[in-house]
Structure formats: C-alpha cells, structure tokens
C-alpha cells in the first residue's frame, strides 16, 4: 500500500516519523529534522558568529550525524562558525580503535580538522588498564568522569569557545530519570538546559536535545552516513540499564513520552532555601568542581595508589582530604622557598 507524505508534498511516504507517527517522504523528513535542529540552535542562542565549536566525535551515530548536520546548517544559514572534531580515545580494545577509524573517515568526508586525545596521554591509564584494576562494576564511573574533563581539556587546547555533544532527547530523558532516582537535585535542574556553562569551564551545547535517537538513526540511514554501531565492550551498569529500559518502554507506549519527560524536567523548580553545592574549581587540576578536589582527581589518586575502590566508595572524601593536604604542603613549601 502506498502512503502519501503527510506534509502534503505529493510524494510517497517512505518512513513513519518516530516522534509524531506521521508518514513522510525522504525530502520532507530531512527538512523536518534539520529545521528542528536549526530551531533548537537559534531559539537557544547556542552559538555566536565567529566561535570555534568543538564537536565531541566518537564515530557513533549521534556525533556522526551531529558533525554532518552542523556543517550543513553552518553553510546553509551562515552561522559563521568554525567547526572542529575532537575525539577522545578511552583505550578500549575492540571498541574505540574501530570507532576511531570511523571518525577519521568523517574527517575526510566532511573536511573538518580532527584531534584525538587519549586517556592514556591525559591520565596515564587506558580504560582497559582501569578495568583490570577495578573490575567490570564501576568502569563507567571512571570513564564518564574522565570523559567530561578530557573533552574540556581538548577543547581548551584547540582554543574552542564551546563544546557540542551528540546527546539526544533519549539521553536527556534518561538523565532526568537517573537524577531523580539518585537524588541529585542540582544536576536534575542543570541537565535540561540546552547549554550548560559554569564559571571557569567551556559552555556545552546539545543541539540534539529534542531529537529522537530513532530519528537520528533514520537520518543517518537514508543519508547513508557512515558510523560505527557497536556497543562498548564494557556494558554500562545494571542500574542504568533499568532507566534506559524505562525510557524505551515509555516511548513504545506513547511516542511523545521522551519529549514529555524533558518538558517535565524543564518545569522542575527547586524550593527556595534548598542548598545546592557551589561550583568552584578543583585546587589540584583547576577544572570545575563542586568540591575542593574534583572527582577526576580523586579517582586518579585512587588508581595511582592502587586503591581504586577507595575513590568510589564512601571514603572518597578522605582521599580528597589527603590530596588537599598534600597540595597545601607543597604550596607552603614553595612559599617557604620563595622567602629565601
């Protein structure tokens, strides 16, 4: 049975839009998808003309489509942006090495400069080594914390003004649920903003905040964009599995659920008088942190001491104190030396 495109262009539809269930032809779907991303970018004033934007590129579908579409919109609407690809090599055999190949192909096809930074270079540890130390349970804690900082470091290195990541609507919905479940009110509020900027760190933009994962896949499929589709060999923790499954089940029940969750998240307002952790900078590495010592430094200290479990358990505060003390000592030492 032939279905007409619901946008009334007269063509035959080739797909059912996951977000709205409307039948669309290829052209109208491209147009719809791109127009919506453009609207997200414009209405949130995500970028300013003349800025250098680091696209966090992993070779996966989200970042591949992001790179493609930012380049396309930048040309079509004259955003006036300079785009660069920034890739982080976590050091996961069988996952990252293959996906990096795909990033390199993107670089050639889209003609965008690519920089690769590795956990090994930045922290002295690959994820493979870390997993050998900590086992398969807390791998994502290390990986996730290091990733955030690694992107920041890379973007600063490249003189970028803003980091754009491929986080899509499904990711945002999942993050809202995770933060409700883990009781993190500050992040709960922060995670829905289109662009997060805190003092002392580069702003992060999510142009796909309202784009469904399924539509990103459809877009890549019809545009024949080349991406790497394998999941990480170290599967995420069980808890996240639950939250992820909930988002998928909700979407199956009602396709607008994902955007409805984001709306709910955007409307959450914190009561007056609730204390939120203050954002400052880590006294060890100088990157943003809500504690004296940031999570990345604590984790790294745990690894380097051969006691990684200390860093993730309840005793992580103790570890942070030791680190702070040591810093204070070297500082006073150097100020003593200054006097002579």
């Amino acid at each position, binding site marked *: 049975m032939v279905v007409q495109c619901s946008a009334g262009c007269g063509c035959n539809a080739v797909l059912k839009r996951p977000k709205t269930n*409307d039948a669309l032809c290829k052209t109208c779907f491209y147009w719809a998808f791109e127009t919506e991303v453009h609207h997200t970018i414009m209405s949130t*004033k995500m970028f300013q003309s003349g800025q250098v934007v680091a696209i966090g590129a992993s070779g996966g579908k989200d970042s591949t489509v992001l790179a493609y579409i930012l380049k396309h919109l930048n040309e079509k609407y004259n955003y006036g942006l300079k785009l660069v690809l920034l890739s982080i090599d976590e050091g996961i055999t069988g996952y990252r090495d293959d996906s990096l190949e795909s990033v390199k192909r993107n670089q050639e096809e889209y003609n965008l400069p690519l920089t690769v930074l590795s956990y090994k270079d930045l922290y002295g540890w690959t994820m493979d080594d870390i997993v050998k130390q900590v086992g398969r349970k807390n791998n994502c804690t290390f990986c996730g914390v290091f990733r955030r900082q690694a992107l920041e470091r890379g973007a600063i290195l490249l003189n970028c003004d803003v980091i754009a990541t*491929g986080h899509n609507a499904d990711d945002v919905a999942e993050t809202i649920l995770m*933060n409700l479940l883990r009781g993190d009110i500050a992040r709960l509020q922060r995670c829905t903003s289109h662009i997060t900027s805190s003092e002392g760190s580069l702003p992060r933009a999510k142009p796909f905040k309202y784009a469904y994962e399924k539509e990103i896949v459809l877009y890549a499929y019809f545009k024949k964009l080349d991406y790497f589709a394998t999941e990480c060999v170290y599967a995420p923790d069980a808890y996240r599995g639950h939250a992820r499954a909930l988002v998928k089940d*909700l979407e199956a029940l009602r396709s607008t659920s994902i955007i*409805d*969750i984001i709306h*709910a998240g*955007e409307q*959450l307002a914190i009561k007056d008088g609730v204390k939120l952790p203050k954002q400052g900078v880590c006294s060890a590495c100088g990157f943003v942190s809500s504690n004296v010592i940031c999570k990345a430094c604590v984790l790294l200290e745990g690894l380097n001491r051969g006691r990684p479990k200390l860093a993730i358990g309840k005793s992580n505060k103790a570890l942070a104190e030791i680190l702070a003390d040591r810093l204070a000592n070297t500082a006073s030492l150097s100020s003593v030396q200054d006097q002579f």
Partner: protein
Amino acid sequence: MCSINEENLPVDTMVATPKLLFKDAVCRRCRILKAQVLLRKTDPYCRDCFMKYAVHKFRSTIGKARALQHNDRVLLAYSGGLSSGSMIHLIKQGLEASDSNKMKLIIKPSLLYIDEGEILNLSKEDRKANADFVLEYAKRNCLDVYMCSLEFSLAADISGVKLQMNSYEVEPSIYASQLERLFGSVKSLTAKEDLLQRLKQRLITLLATHLNYSKVFLGPSATRLAGQLLSAVGQGRGAQIAQEIGFADSRTGVVFLRPMREFVDKEVAYLAHFLEVDSLSLPTLSSKLGPTASIGRLTEEFVVTLQANFPATISTLFRTSDKLKPNVGVDRSSSEFKDDSRCLLCLSAIEQSPLCSASTARSISQTISRSGPSGFKDVESEPQSTNVQQQLKACDANCSNPGKQCCKTMDVGANEKDWGVVLCYGCRVTMEDVKTPELVPINLQEELRLRSRRQMMRQSVEQFLL
C-alpha cells in the same frame, strides 16, 4: 560518543544491598525480642517496636506539616484497600488515645467512598457487594460514610450529584452512560487512568465543598506515590510533582492530604496484618493487563522491581521531590482574571512555553511534519539574515511573543496551541487521546473563546495598566 558522563552516573544508593538472614534475628530497637518484621532488607523489628515506629511515623507525617487544627472536619477517602484501611485504623487509634497522650488526634472525621464500578465494568451486584463491605467497615469503626458513584463527576455542579449517606444503591443515571461513552472514546489506557484521576479529584472536591469539609485524607502508600511520580514525569507533569506527590495538595481549594506517603507497600502489609485490617480486592483499569499496559502501570512495576533490589529507591525519589517547588505559574493574583492561568481539568497553573522548550519543540514537530516545507513559506520569504547575530536579534525581539515575526515560521498547529490557553501540558497530552472532549465536564470551547478574547483585550490595553 558514549552518552555517559559525570552528569548521569549512578551513586552509592544504587548499589544492591544483600538481604539480611532473617532467621533468629533480634529486633534492632529493643535488642531483646525476636524480630517479626524485616524492613529495607537489613533492619529487623519486633512487632511492638514496629508498631511504635509506624505510629510515630504516621503522626510525624501529619504533625510536621502543621496541616491540621483542633476539631478540623476531615473526610477520609476510603477505597476498601489495605493502605486507606490502615490509615483509618491509625486515625481511630489517635482519636481514642487518652487525653494525656501526645499522640492524641483531635479531629472530626467521616469516610468517603467513591464507587468506580461503572468504568471497571463491574456488575451491579459486585458494586453493591463492595459498597456493603465499606458500609460494614464504617459501622464497625463508628464512622459515618458518604457514598457516591464516579459518574457524577460529569455533573455540572452539586445539584446533579446523588450523594448517599450510610447506605448505597446503584441507580441508573444519565451520567452513567455518558461516562461509559467518554471512556470508550479514549485511545490509550494511560489517558484513561489520568482522566480517572482528574475526575475523581473533581468529584471529591465537589462533595467536600458541599459537605463543608476543607480537608480530605487520601491513602496512597509511598510505593504508589513513587510510581505516580515517575508516571507524572512520563506524562509531562513535572511542574505538578510537588502537589501530586507531596503531603498536601491545595490546587482545588479543598486541601488533599496524604498521611500514608511515608509507608512503602511492605510496611503497609505489616501494618494491616498487625492491625487486622481486612480489605476488598478491587480491580483497576489495568488489572488484567500486562506490566506495560500503561505509563502508570509501567512506572509502578519499575519502582517495585527497583525497590526490591535497591531499598533506597523510594526514599531517594521522595527526598528529591520534596525539594521541588509547587508550580505557581504566572502570578496574576492581582489581575481581574486570576483563574485564567489555571488548567480547567486539573486546576494546576498552566506552564508557560518559551520559544526554546520541550513544549514548543513538541508542537513544532507536529506542525512541521503535517504541513511540510510548503506550509512554511514565511521561512523563505523572511529576509535571510546573513549572520547568526542578526537572526538572533530578530528572534530575541519576539521571544516574549512567540507566534510572531521570525519565529512565526515555527508557529504551532491551531488545535493544540489553543488548548494551551485552557489546559496544562499534562492535560493536553491526555486530551489528545480523548475523542469526545465535549463529554469532559469542562467548558473547553467556551472557556477557550473567553480566555482568548480576554488575552487579546489584555494585550491591547497592556500599556495602560499599572
């Protein structure tokens, strides 16, 4: 990129705790008696200590909110279930305590039973039998009980409602067939469940106001409410969490209180057991259906499963939601038309939808994929700005007034956009699934006209208002 980063990592409470071996455990409180209760997988209690703990928790839930005054008239909504049954037992205990006891409750309660049999397709006999159970229960507890059937939620006002006291007959009424037609026209079970909740709230408000009760106790447990919290989030009701899950909800003018909100189902089961509460086994809209039948059902299953593995789940969800502010919406209290900012169906404040929001993104997607590029002529005819700054400026000038100029290209489809004047986001989502909106007892079309007109008037005189 892998989407996991520091923003969404699991924390300590998300680590599964092993279960305590219960056999021969001693109560953690008195350290003398053998434990009969195991809470949170690791905390054993004897019967007496559990009851003390439970009574104390119940009273402190009520007390800390300072919601009650001496001799308050309170309606206790009774469903026949374990949770509301236990609630009533605990209140009875409080009423009967000696004057010197600081746990003594001084209120004037009556029961309220809403018969939902019509939409649950129960036979007349079953409905009568359930009502008899409730009557018997009220009699045993020496409390008056008001009884009413859900279909009267469709009545325009109290004059159309048949309210019975200490007796119940199922009688045919025009509203019964209307209710059946209405629910038959709802596309999804999720929307049916949401609509049921709204109608019940409306009916209870009507009755309480008429009977001159300013407070109503509702009996949902912590487990139920935690499921409802996630369900509310899944249906876009983020702004309403504080009212829908919190201890007190005063959206309708009558104050709804939830004194069982700190008891998880397991605690309710122990309570009911020790207090010898019997219950009706009541079906629900999704009773015979699977765990993915509706959003409400799904989230409840989710909470129950998670709680079994991670006993901090529910308390963490509550801790989070208790820090949220009830949405008050636009403050028009000084305006002539302060009700214009309330949702007709759930009476919550209607959220604003700024240009850059999920709510705008949702309607844009719908418009865009229904009208296509040709429906967006304005996009092309608008002078294409040559740089971002210029476009942003154009956008900026109109952000407070979406639907005009540079952003009119993103304007929203007629229907749903208009509903935004009279319904909150969550109710709009529900009403999208209702095929016979005219049967819902709100003056959707008329209010829509009135409010839109008032809005236009306000806009035209705005510059003269102080």
